[in-house]
């Protein structure tokens, strides 16, 4: 039991991210309304982005913008240590992921409006009945 507490302190945030991902997955599978499914997809996407961004964090490091770089020519003289700055690579990849998620959300809302125009409902079981008629 004594080695459970350091394990929890080291890994608790990963467990919370997995719980958030599973909330999104449950909403995508089990909810009937189409818009709730899209909300679940978006929750899953942002939870994955949170997981990736948390990988890049380094203890006692600052944000990934080089300090004192505006001086012009004396900026070349200062030595930059990679251990002082947070890893910027996951941030770059996740910026593209956020852009793609908002584009998908816009198209999903347009599809929902179109389905409502044609079938007058957004519930999945009613849609199935009307499609099989």
């Amino acid at each position, binding site marked *: 039991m004594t080695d459970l507490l350091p394990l929890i302190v*080291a*890994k608790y*945030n*990963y*467990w919370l991210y*997995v*719980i958030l*991902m*599973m909330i999104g*997955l*449950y909403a995508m*599978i*089990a909810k009937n309304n189409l818009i709730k499914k899209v909300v679940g997809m978006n929750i899953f996407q942002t939870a994955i982005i949170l997981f990736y961004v*948390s*990988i*890049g*964090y*380094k*203890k006692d*490091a600052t944000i*990934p*913008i*080089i*300090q004192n*770089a*505006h001086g012009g020519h004396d*900026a*070349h003289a200062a030595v*930059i*240590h*990679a*251990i002082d*700055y947070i*890893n*910027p*690579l*996951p*941030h*770059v990849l996740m*910026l*593209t992921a956020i*852009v*793609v998620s908002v*584009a*998908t959300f*816009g*198209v999903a*809302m*347009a*599809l929902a*409006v*179109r389905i409502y*125009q044609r079938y007058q409902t957004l519930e999945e079981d009613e849609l199935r009945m009307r499609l099989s008629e």
Partner: protein
Amino acid sequence: MKFLGVVIVCLTGGLLLYGTADFPDWGDPSSPASTHLSDYYIEKTIEDTQVPNIVTSVLADYRGFDTMFETAVIFTAGLACFLLLRDFRGKKERFYRHKPTGVILHIKDGKKTLAVGKEFEHMDKDWVPSDLIIKTVCRILIPFIQIYAMYVVAHGDFSPGGGFQGGVIFGSSLILLAISYDLKTLVKRIKEKVLGIFAALGVLIYVGIAAICMPMGGNFLDYSKLAPLVPGDPHHVRALGMLGVEIGVGFAVMAVMAIIYINIVSEGRHDEGL
């Protein structure tokens, strides 16, 4: 379906939780994600590109190919919304409201038009009195929001920001105009054709700047070969190439946000909205 959902979620969650036992500790500087390539990016970005914001320099210069296709994805989303929803048939019935008395005229046949005087105003099906406070405040705020958006695009090299964030802020200023006044005000001010041209122009600017590097003797997206074309210090040419590319992304994103909003809120007819 709910029981199946619970079973799948528990299985997947259990497998993922079992996999977290092997993860590196949080905040560890020697974790595998933080060692091999990101050290090169952090240490060499000032020397290669003169841009302090490491995220922007990696996004627009070292990994510019990904950002080009991200812009193409945004453009495709705007195109998809337009193709799904746009309805060119026009409304079949019209409503006019007499301003002094409040009497409403309802013309059912779409083909006949009525020449009305200045006391009648064209109204939407659900008429809401326009609020003077909201209109005045938004009219004052919108130019400042647009200046802030242009600041965010131009300062993406030195502070958090960049082309995408500035484009979204500019697009939301156009959406604010549509919400506080009327959708017809926005459509009359910035026509649909202009928005479409801006969206395509944004992608064209990005690909154009990347393609111009090839006749100058470099690879695709190699901004350092643009030095003869650009006035100024040859060390800064990569930062200037990045700025041009971010402006392209800003144009595309601004136009696509406005296109998606207008098409969703009016169901494609571009006549009345929120």
